[in-house]
Every structure is written in structure tokens, then in C-alpha cells.
């Protein structure tokens, strides 16, 4: 593997780690010292150089190893990638969006050349070269959505829009925070969000749906979500709960700094041009507590967020059991000093 990419694992011996550079650019999700749901969407426009917002689709040091992990998940359980028949056009839209973005943003790694519908794609980090006919699925080794998302970090779902609702009808989901594409596929917006506590009563989903139905091509938006994960597992799926769930019961004050991770999802939403569907990339970033506390502001703030979060939310996010251990670990890093507003380290 080249110098640009780590050789690491997200299972077994868990050799995943963040470099100093990756810690510095980590998308810390809390702009203030407390957390409550909000729609919190903003335009997905290019951010500062080096940040995870710099490009439409962030490619970082974990890219090659994450794609290797995805291939393993799919080999074990092909149902993690599904696309209902009418969603193939949306898959092509997504493939075009990703290929054009990556070739533009990372020309040293990716290139795309077109002669009409005859396309030539080169992915140097994964050593892939593919000539194919755009909109002709028989010229690719997988369907268009599966083909491109085997080469792109983050989970993806594609939502069809009809009857004033969004319907989750295709997806590649191998790095999820405990939800199942196989269970949700075909559901409407409120159906697949049904398990989320509190937010329905707050009207969050009414507002979010109304907003998304009007999402315009060329004006993507983004938001954060977050949870907690023990050990650097990308695949925390309900299907595999027996494999990873019990890990939550074996953490100790000695191991928490190393094993407990803050899991942040950078979620973006894009209107797709040909299909009028919406693409929803859910990009997962992991950081261990012992990496996170190297940034004093983040350590102070995370302590306050975990301390004050309502139990319903801690339960839904799956860390109520370990909340006391987390607070015990984080408290020494919180000297009571005020924190500056915003996400930045300081």
C-alpha cells in the first residue's frame, strides 16, 4: 500500500488508528457543550483546505482498508447491497456524480475520460481500470450503484421521490450504526425513521421531509449524526449484533481510552438529475477516546455532552450502560474552563 493509505483492519486485531493529521481534521460534531436533535442542515459547499469538507466526497488515509473491509462484509452477506429494479437509473446518476467529483478533486488518484457514452475510469489507489458504456449495466461487473460504492467510503442509500414522500429503495450499507437496509428497503421516510426517539414529537421529521422534497440538483446539503462504538468496527449491523454487541460489556477503566470510539457520520444529500431521486451518502469517521482527548477543547466538551444527554438518547445510541465509565474517563480532562463556540479544535 502506498504512503497515502494505511494498512489496517476494522475487525479481528483492530489495527485501525488515526494519524496526527487525521485527528486534526476529524469532524467533531458538537458546536456547543450540549446536544439535542435538530435538522441542522447546511449547504454542502467546499470547506477549508485539508478539512473533510474540502471535497464533495472525502477520500482519506483509511480509504483502501475501508474498501477491503466492505468487500469482506459483502462476501459474507450480499444483502447489504440491494437495488429495486426501478432504481438503476438513480444508480447511474450516483456513479456519474462520484466519478466526476473524484476525478475533479483528486486527479492524482482518479481519472475519468468520456467519448460520448464510452467512459474510461481509472482508480489508482484500488488499481482498477474500467472501460464501460454509460447507462448500459451489462458493461460493468456489478450494477452501477454497487460498482461505484465498492470504491467509495461511506454507506449510500438512494431514495425515490413520489407521492410527496421519499422511499428508500436502493443502498450499499456495510458501515452502519445498527440499522439494516434489508429490513428498511421499500419504506417511506417516516417509516424508516420510526425507531428514533423524541424527534418525531419535536416535528423534526415533518420539517426534514418537507425540506428534502424540495432539494435542488446542484445544491447538496449536509448534516452530522453521531453515536458511540466499542472497538473500531465499521460494520455494526443488526445482522451481526451477536458478534459485536457483547463487546460493550467487557470494557474496563483500563481499556476504555483505547476501545471506546466516537463515531461521527457526515451525511450529505444530493438531488440526482436523471432519476429525480435523492442520494444519501453516510460517511463514517471513527476516533478513539485516547485520540480525541489530545484536543483539549473536544475532551472538555465531550465530557459535558455525555454527562448531560437525556437517557432516551443514550439508550437509543447504545451507550447508556457505559456512560458512567465514559464520564470517569473524560472527567479529568474537563477543568471547567469555557469552550469556544463551533467545531474547531480552538
Amino acid at each position, binding site marked *: 500500500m502506498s504512503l497515502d493509505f494505511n494498512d489496517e483492519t476494522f475487525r479481528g486485531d483492530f489495527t485501525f488508528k488515526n494519524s496526527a493529521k487525521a485527528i486534526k481534521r476529524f469532524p467533531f460534531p458538537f458546536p456547543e457543550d450540549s446536544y439535542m436533535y435538530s435538522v441542522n442542515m447546511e449547504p454542502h459547499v467546499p470547506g477549508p483546505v485539508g478539512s473533510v469538507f474540502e471535497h464533495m466526497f472525502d477520500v482519506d488515509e483509511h480509504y483502501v482498508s475501508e474498501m477491503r473491509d466492505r468487500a469482506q462484509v459483502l462476501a459474507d452477506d450480499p444483502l447489504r447491497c440491494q437495488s429495486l429494479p426501478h432504481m438503476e437509473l438513480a444508480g447511474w446518476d450516483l456513479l456519474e456524480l462520484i466519478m466526476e467529483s473524484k476525478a475533479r478533486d483528486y486527479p492524482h488518484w482518479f481519472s475519468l475520460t468520456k467519448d460520448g457514452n464510452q467512459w474510461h475510469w481509472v482508480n489508482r489507489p484500488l488499481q482498477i481500470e474500467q472501460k464501460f458504456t454509460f447507462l448500459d449495466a451489462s458493461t460493468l461487473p456489478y450494477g452501477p450503484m454497487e460498482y461505484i460504492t465498492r470504491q467509495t467510503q461511506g454507506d449510500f442509500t438512494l431514495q425515490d*421521490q413520489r407521492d410527496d414522500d421519499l422511499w428508500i429503495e436502493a443502498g450499499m450499507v456495510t458501515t452502519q450504526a445498527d440499522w439494516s437496509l434489508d429490513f428498511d428497503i421499500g419504506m417511506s421516510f417516516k417509516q424508516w425513521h420510526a425507531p428514533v426517539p423524541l424527534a418525531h414529537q419535536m416535528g423534526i421529521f415533518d420539517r426534514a421531509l418537507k425540506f428534502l422534497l424540495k432539494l435542488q440538483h446542484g445544491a447538496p446539503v449536509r448534516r452530522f449524526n453521531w453515536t458511540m462504538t466499542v472497538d473500531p468496527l465499521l460494520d455494526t449491523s443488526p445482522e451481526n449484533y451477536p458478534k459485536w454487541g457483547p463487546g460493550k460489556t467487557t470494557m474496563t477503566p483500563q481499556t476504555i481510552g483505547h476501545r471506546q470510539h466516537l463515531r461521527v457520520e457526515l451525511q450529505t444529500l444530493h438531488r440526482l438529475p*436523471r432519476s429525480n431521486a435523492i442520494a444519501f451518502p453516510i460517511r463514517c469517521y471513527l476516533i478513539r477516546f485516547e485520540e480525541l482527548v489530545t484536543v483539549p477543547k473536544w475532551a472538555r466538551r465531550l465530557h459535558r455532552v455525555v454527562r448531560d444527554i437525556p437517557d432516551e438518547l443514550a439508550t437509543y445510541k447504545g451507550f447508556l450502560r457505559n456512560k458512567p465509565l465514559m464520564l470517569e474517563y473524560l472527567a479529568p480532562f474537563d477543568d471547567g474552563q469555557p469552550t469556544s463556540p463551533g467545531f474547531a479544535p480552538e
Partner: protein
Amino acid sequence: MSVGAPKIPVVVAEVVEVNDLIKRFRFVRRDGGAMPVFSGGAHVVVEMDDHGVRRMNPYSLMSHPADTMGYEISVRRDEAGRGGSLYMHRHVKPGMEMVLSQPVNLFPLDARAKKHLMIAGGIGITPFVAQMAQVEAMGGRFELHYSVRSPVLGAYVEHLKAHYGPRVHVYHDEHGEKIDLQTLLKSQPLGTHIYACGPKGMIAWVHATAKAMGWPDRAVHSEEFLAPPVGQAFEVQLAASGKSITVQPNQSLLEAIEAAGVEAPYLCRGGACGQCETNVLRCDGHIEHNDHWLTDEQKATNTKIMPCVSRFRGTALILDR
């Protein structure tokens, strides 16, 4: 939260007189670049500077959705309208610079349909021209039933017949030809979706006939842009921005808000999409709700207004804008 996509600076590449009532306009990007691909049924909002009056009218795109070299729209001249179509007909010439919005689709095809049954009246043909091209390219199944006043006013009839053959059925009002909708709907295969675009009465007739024959609402789609109606001038207070404005007889409330320098959201400007929905803080009088968006209950309470098409008569209207 903003939904504003960057606007498209264009130059008029071609103006074609299709018949006595309709002109077709082709726009290309000023910088020579590619237009975004779009989906059949999408519209753009065309911005006009009509001698100092800013007009923004939505028009369905009718060029091939995969043609990224330019966009085409057709505009029917409306002598009794507020002036947008007259401006397009009289003043827009090749070489003129204009501005378009990004395409927005409020009339998409249902991708699950086994067959698309399209019913067009007059200028309502335009979204179907793009949709047929897209369905054809994907190998889908469709049928067009197109009602026009006379052979002379049958825009694009020859082109469509030449392209799509027996899938195109044309009916001439002046020859007494009518779409036999009941027979048509009776003979459709399972999984057919119906789409209607044209005059208000025709759309209502399609919905009512399909409903009476047991078609589910979700299999019947329609699009009707409303032109903002003219009316009497009225005063409005904008609470959030602290301004008082007068809406002129031939101006919409939304246009008056924009003219006062207040930013207001919009997409279709035709009472269909819901984007410009605005809270009413006080209403001493009567709101003329002209939109398709608010429910009858919402309209009755006068707590919301769609400023793109609705007007007011009375002594005081205060909006949260």
C-alpha cells in the same frame, strides 16, 4: 436552510415560431459549458427584465434530457396575462442574455410504472416531449394522447408522429375529435400510470374519470402551473423585515416582496410546490387563495399564504417575512 442552487447564465441561441400562438426558445450557457442533465417533466424559471419589471415565469423543459448543449422551452402567447409571455414573444431575440434557474421536477414520471399513459392538452405537451425522449432512451413503454385545437395549432404533432409512430394519438377539437378516456383507461395493462398536463378542466376531467373507474390516486399525476392572477392593488406589512409594501394590480405578492429587497424562498412560482409558504400574523380581510398547495382547512383559517399566486382584499395583512 437554503435550497438555492446556482442560477444558469444563458444566451438565447434560437427563437422559432412554431405556430401563431407558440414560440420555441433555445438557451445555451454563456460560458459555452454544459447544462445540467435533467429528468423529463422538469421546469426552469426564466428571469426577464421587462423594461425595469422583473418577471420570473416557470416553463417546462422540452429538449432531450440528455442534451447538455442547451435547453428548450415553448411559450404560448397569453394576450390577457400579466405580460411574461408577451415579453418572451415580442422582445426575446437570439443573442440576448438571460438567466435560468436550475431545473426542478414537480411532474416526474413514476419509475415503477409498467407503462406511461400521457394525456396532453395544447401547450401542456411540453413536459411530455422531454419525458417521451427519456422513456424511449430507456426502452420504456408509453402512449401519448394529445388534444389540440386545430391542425394548424397542433404544436410538434408532425415531429412526434414521425418519431414515435403509432404511440402518438392526436385529437382536433375543431373536428369534434375527443379522447375516449373511459375506453382508453379500461384497456390499460396493470401497472400503468396516467399523466395529465393541459387546461384546468382537462386535468380535473382526467382525475375524476380515473377515480370513478377505480384507479388509485397515486397512479394519476398532473401538473398545472398557475399564472399569478391580476387583481386590485393591496398593502402588506412584512413583520420580520419591518417593511410596508404595495402589491400592484399586475404584480404578484412574491414579486412585490422581492422588489422590496426581501429574500423569500420559491421554486415553481405557480402555486404548486409549497416552497414559498408564508405565515400570516394578522389578516383583517379576505385572502384570495389561488394555490394548489394549502389544504381547504388551512385556507379557511387564513394563517398561511402562498405569495406566488395569492392576493388579499381588506384593511390589514401582516406576514412573517
